[in-house]
């Protein structure tokens, strides 16, 4: 299990090569990269920040859960923080498994769940301003309704 938060360029080839073993028949890789636009607005770069200790702990938990839920053999989950330019990898997920179905499902579940539950944010720098990217709302079991919604 390789779970990391890093400030450096993610060495994708190395991570993929390292994870493979003789009993694997399928490797599924998700590479999340910085896109040159958001809804047509031109992006210059992104700044990623995290609640670092908690994010790493949550990522470890997701990797363990993926192995248990989908029966895959091995998982790598690496997120980069700091300033990333267009084309760079912000998150890399690699899943190795005997069979492809489990590899795909675990990989998809990992990125979907990571993006909803791991405390990492990105600020997008456009040519004409910067915004914190709209996040997907937290799942109900995590969200804390504001006081006005509780009454």
């Amino acid at each position, binding site marked *: 299990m390789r779970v990391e938060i890093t400030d450096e360029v993610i060495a994708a080839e190395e991570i993929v090569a390292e994870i493979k073993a003789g009993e694997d028949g399928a490797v599924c890789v998700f590479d999340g990269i910085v896109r040159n636009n958001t809804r047509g607005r031109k992006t210059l770069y992104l700044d990623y920040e995290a609640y670092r200790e908690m994010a790493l702990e949550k990522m470890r938990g997701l990797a363990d859960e993926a192995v248990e839920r989908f029966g895959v053999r091995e998982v790598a989950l690496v997120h980069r923080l700091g300033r990333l330019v267009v084309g760079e990898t912000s998150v890399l997920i690699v899943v190795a498994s005997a069979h492809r179905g489990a590899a795909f499902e675990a990989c998809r579940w990992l990125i979907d769940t990571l993006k909803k*539950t791991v*405390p990492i944010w*990105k600020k997008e720098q456009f040519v004409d301003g910067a915004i914190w990217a709209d996040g997907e709302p937290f799942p109900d079991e995590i969200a*804390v309704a*504001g*006081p006005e919604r509780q009454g």
Partner: protein
Amino acid sequence: MRVRVLYFGVLKDAFGRGVEEMELAEGASVADLIAACRGRYAGVREIWDSMAVAVNQEYARAEMVLREGDEVALLPPVSGGFDW
């Protein structure tokens, strides 16, 4: 009692800092802390309605009662589920 409050993302920009110590009444809950912070920042309501809170690095419910020395993090929705 004193707790340590961490701000992230848009909240960090809004408060102009990433961390501060806050004095709360004994028995104060996560909801009480949010109400106090909300009073100090007239930002968009949606953030407060869709955020999460972590106490000592675990997601916590609004009714959770805080204790002296807790690390409480206010977390805006995480990065862009519908973005890629």
